[in-house]
């Protein structure tokens, strides 16, 4: 076993090559973004310490000669001082820095989606077969009036008196979560743009500005205004289907962002509208928002800039007092509120924040929906739930808990090959997703992976239709907020109360 240098932190994985199978094509050397492999004259040599188990090498090894194993070398077992703690202490004692991680927290917190079961029909009400009957998933995001106002035309027929506030029309209740150009590659953004257009949904470009190549996808794009205000101008605000103000992120509530200067090449510099080579820093707060009334000003400044023709979304992280916060955000004029839960993904976040701050999306969305209903303002804004939606089952549960739609971030990246190695912040992504290295990004073919992402959302949509049919309803709006169709298992009374659902059998 080789070690690159003397450190207490052992390699987590072993890249084991079966030299009998290996034909020395060196494809693994090319494919690994981490520099794990090199050619030692007659055979491939692996530096295990560099391996992150991203899966790229064995996926593309034509001979199936590579195995990635968990390093069997044990650390002395201790239920309290686990590997995770000890290794972080070693790492930080060597660097003196804040530990940084990518992706959502890998720690095993209770996942409430896994403790919720769905209802179905038997005898007294019939299930509906989605292959025979229409099954509607169409979703509109935006403010709805609390009541309709009618006029009557010359024929005496009722017509709408006032135009509806602007809406985003989604063919299926999914959107792609905001991921900026810079945190991910342009090709990764293009994958989502192509899929969003084909699916009739929207992607969110995050805070990194809008690249010229994405301008034609405007109808399927939400543009973001975050604390760094990168690339923001009047044309930018008007180039998408909606504008989102990013206040926080589930993986790092209360924390800003930092894209290091070495990643700011010519293209990103132009898109973000900052000089090449300078750090792109998004401060923790917006420096013009220090209170809810300031947020209101920004919301209306944007509405003025887009002539009230596009909905304005506000993205917040799910924190303890989220219900009151969202109520304030809605009353401040937001048309959509995007709630990002604990365990949501990130390109880079301080590990301490990612692993310890926030509340799960299941509870957050249930609480927010309930609070807005109690205040009689649920119609004023649509809610998007995010924070590791792993399956169509999670999506159905989130919608029944009160979300209008769900956002898919990590799941979308997984369709591009992501193995959730959690090293997004290093910029070495072998899959060409969270990297700007041209030799890596060019391997991510937008068309090929756009189709895969399309397939995924298409499949999930079919699954939601199956579940709706089993529940005996033929429209997603009959599921939305219908907590009566949910039951909890293995949950305490407090947990059930926080979710607003009954225990199974009740």
């Amino acid at each position, binding site marked *: 076993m080789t070690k690159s240098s003397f450190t207490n932190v052992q390699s987590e994985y072993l890249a084991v090559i079966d030299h009998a199978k290996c034909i020395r094509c060196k494809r693994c050397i090319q494919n690994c973004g981490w520099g794990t492999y090199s050619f030692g004259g007659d055979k491939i040599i692996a530096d295990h310490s560099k391996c992150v188990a991203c899966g790229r090498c064995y996926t593309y090894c034509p001979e199936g000669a590579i195995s990635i194993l968990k390093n069997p070398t044990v650390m002395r077992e201790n239920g309290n001082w686990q590997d995770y703690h000890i290794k972080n202490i070693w790492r930080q004692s060597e660097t003196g820095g804040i530990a940084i991680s990518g992706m959502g927290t890998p720690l095993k917190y209770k996942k409430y989606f896994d403790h919720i079961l769905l209802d179905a*029909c038997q005898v*007294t*009400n*019939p299930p*509906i077969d989605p292959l025979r*009957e*229409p099954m*509607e998933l*169409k979703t*509109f995001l935006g403010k*709805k*009036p*609390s*009541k*309709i106002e*009618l006029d009557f*035309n010359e024929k005496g*027929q*009722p*017509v*709408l008196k006032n135009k*509806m506030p602007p*809406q985003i029309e989604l063919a299926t209740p999914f959107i792609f979560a905001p991921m900026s150009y810079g945190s991910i590659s342009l090709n990764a953004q293009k994958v989502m743009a192509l899929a969003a257009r084909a699916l009739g949904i929207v992607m969110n470009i995050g805070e990194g500005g809008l690249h010229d190549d994405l301008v034609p996808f405007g109808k399927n794009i939400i543009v973001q205004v975050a604390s760094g205000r990168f690339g923001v101008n009047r044309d930018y605000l008007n180039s998408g289907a909606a504008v989102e103000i990013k206040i926080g992120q589930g993986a790092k509530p209360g924390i800003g962002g930092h894209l290091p200067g070495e990643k700011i090449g010519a293209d990103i510099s132009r898109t973000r509208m900052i000089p090449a080579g300078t750090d792109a820093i998004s401060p923790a707060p917006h420096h013009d928002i220090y209170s809810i009334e300031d947020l209101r000003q920004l919301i209306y400044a944007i509405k003025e800039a887009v002539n009230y023709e596009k909905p304005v979304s506000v993205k917040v992280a799910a924190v303890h007092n989220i219900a009151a916060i969202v109520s304030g955000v809605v009353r401040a004029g937001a048309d959509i509120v995007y709630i990002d839960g604990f365990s949501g993904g990130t390109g880079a976040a301080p590990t301490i924040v990612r692993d310890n701050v926030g509340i799960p999306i299941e509870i957050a969305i249930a609480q927010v929906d309930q609070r807005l*209903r109690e205040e*009689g303002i*649920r*119609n004023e804004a649509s809610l998007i739930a995010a924070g590791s939606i792993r399956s169509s089952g999670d999506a159905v549960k989130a919608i029944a808990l009160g979300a209008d739609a769900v956002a898919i971030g990590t799941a979308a990246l997984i369709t591009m090959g992501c193995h959730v190695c959690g090293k997004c912040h290093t910029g070495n992504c072998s899959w060409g997703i969270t990297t700007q290295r041209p030799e890596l990004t060019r391997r991510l073919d937008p068309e090929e992976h756009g189709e895969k992402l399309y397939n995924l959302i298409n499949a999930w949509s079919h699954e939601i239709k199956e579940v709706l049919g089993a*529940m*005996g*309803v*033929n*429209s997603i*709006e*009959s*599921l*939305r*907020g*219908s*907590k*009566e*169709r949910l039951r909890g298992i293995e949950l305490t009374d407090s947990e059930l109360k926080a979710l607003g659902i009954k225990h199974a059998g*009740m």
Partner: protein
Amino acid sequence: MLRLKNNFSIEHDIAGCGLCGIINVKKIRTNGEDIKKAIALEHDRGNGLGGGFAVYGCYPEYSELYAFHVMYDDLAAKEATEKYFKNNFIIEKQESIPIFKTSKINDHPILHRYFMKPKSDREDRLFSELKDDDFVVKSVMLINSDYDGAYVFSSGKNMGAFKGVGYPEDIADFYMLDNVEGYMWTAHNRFPTNTPGWWGGAHPFTLLDWSIVHNGEISSYGINKRYLEMFKYNLALKTDTEVIAYILDLLIRKHKLPVELAMNVLAAPFYQTIDKMEPEQKELYTALRQIYGSALLNGPFAIIFGYPDGMVALNDRIKLRPLVAGTKGDFTYIASEESSIREICPFPDFVWSPKAGEPIIIKTVKTTIDSENISQKQRLIIS
């Protein structure tokens, strides 16, 4: 003990049922014999655990007063409720609801009716400006949720509900409906599966002048209920039918939707239909779905909805429960089964099966039947 309220843990009532409705568009009044005969033919659609009738035009001498029909478990409940009435209403007349003790109806609550109107100087005027209708709604909800052993089952003007635990034909005898006259009747035969023997749970369900009889189970109950709670409706009974009545109250009385449009909220056209509409209509129907998506009734249902100006029959969007209509002269009949119609009207002018989600709206006086609502295809003309 008699059950006036839903004390079961089940959040909403699951039932299969039979329905009938008769309306004379010229408001000629007939007694309850026909409707009893029609619903009796649907005997097997119920299980003897709930039957009831709504009749319009039955109290012409008190047509300006709210006619409250109230069930009481005991005299204490009656006393407490009457104290509330006396404080807030001018009671013109009160009496026991006439009943005929039949061996088929074993136990029954105290059944009393009051003809009254809200006082102009009632206490709530100190802090709110509720109109009389709103105050009546509030009172009904208050009594039904907070007054143990009391349940208001009818509160409209010149109309009344008569219902209880039993087969509907026995309930008709019990209330002596052959002595009652009205221009519009609806009837219900109930087959509850999990909340049996509950007087308040029988149909029709009424609120002010609205009455609903309903065959079905609303699979969207959970969200319909939460939607109504946003508008301060208190869903004390926890039944599907209550949800329908309150949605109609919200849409028609409070949001001023024409009846036709309100029906298009309950059974909204599919987007594939909306997308083919003319732009103006498309905009309206899309907005209706956007605004009232949570009021969409999803799941199997057939309902007959009565209001002073007419009657509406409606099926769910994919017609999962039976509903047949027939006309003869000024009469229109609605029933779960065609045989019920022919039982009392052997040779109707038309008999047809209303299409899924398409309301049949019969308005009194002016028009006989809104012919636009019956597409030619569904008319099965039998001379």
